[in-house]
């Protein structure tokens, strides 16, 4: 038999029959490559499992605690930076208006009150229009159409909830 099958047996850690073992032993007497494969295989299998120094768990707990503190500190600084930069940006954007109000306060207060009253009356008019339309709709649309509309809305709501639930599920597998 040539060299190849013996090498394959050794590489695949094949369980050998007594006859195959005898053949391999004969081959090993003449093949230094297969002898080296056998010896490295034995050396790999007999290599011990190395243990960490005592107190590994305690050291991990200390490291985890330090990591948590650092993370909390990082978050706090992030919030402070965000708050300060947000306030700065808002101040920069509002600066022209603040200066304008400060230079002519009466005109600005009058304009503000006028705008507020305009919004209030528009809102009132809008609610009245909606109320009239609803009254008209209840007379025109038959009850079964209302039922269909309500069922469709409920179905869409359910679909939306399921989609959100599906997307918000935690991802599986190893990506660490």
């Amino acid at each position, binding site marked *: 038999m040539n060299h190849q099958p013996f090498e394959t047996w050794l590489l695949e850690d094949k369980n050998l029959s007594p006859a195959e073992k005898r053949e391999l032993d004969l081959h090993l007497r003449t093949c230094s490559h297969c002898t080296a494969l056998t010896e490295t295989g034995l050396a790999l299998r007999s290599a011990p499992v190395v243990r960490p120094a005592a107190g590994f*768990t305690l050291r991990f707990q200390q490291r985890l605690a330090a990591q948590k503190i650092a993370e909390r500190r990082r978050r706090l600084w992030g919030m402070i930076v965000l708050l300060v930069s947000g306030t700065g940006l808002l101040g920069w954007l509002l600066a022209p208006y603040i200066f304008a109000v400060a230079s002519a306060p009466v005109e600005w207060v009058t304009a503000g009150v006028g705008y507020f009253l305009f919004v209030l009356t528009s809102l009132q008019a809008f609610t009245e229009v909606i109320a009239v339309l609803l009254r008209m709709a209840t007379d025109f649309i038959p009850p079964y159409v209302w039922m269909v509309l309500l069922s469709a809305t409920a179905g869409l709501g359910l679909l939306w909830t399921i989609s959100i639930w599906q997307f918000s599920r935690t991802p599986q597998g190893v990506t660490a």
Partner: protein
Amino acid sequence: MNEEQAWALEAQQGSDEAFTKLVETYQTPVFNLCYRMLGEPELAEDAAQETFLRAYQHLHRYDQKRPFATWLLSIAAHYCIDKLRRRKFSMFSMDEEDEEGNTFELADPDSPNPEAESIKGQTRTRIQSMLKDLDDTDRAAIIMRYWYDYSEIEIAESLRLTVSAVKSRLHRARKELAGMWQEEETRAHAERRTYESPAF
């Protein structure tokens, strides 16, 4: 569900105590993998700690259907491979470091057969020094195969490779190790002949 998976589930729900139990259970396999990958106890300690830290941070990604050990060792292997790549990138060779890692491998002089123990110790040291000459991913595959008895499928899952890629990597690594072994044997034989007295 076995005990480890129950702890993993509790840890996923926020129990630090359950995670501590997992650290206690898996510290040796994780440390051993890191040591075999990196070759130094200090680096292995750091890598093992980092592995558990990453596992803690990404615990929500652990799939209960898989064994926890496979998931954890996969994190450790990837961390070590990344670390080795970064070291190669910064032109920092393992060969330049000291060999203190071998202290774990020293033979026990009080053992019943010190000579046999010494030979065993030499073989282990030799295997460790040969491992570091392998490609990083090949080394991880060899460690998972021979220290953890992982199947080719488990190695493929852990290292994100195909089963055929794992098979070819294992074969290549075994052949490389055998080649190195042969070279060392030849060198040792030559040295012995040099120091032998011509009178004999």
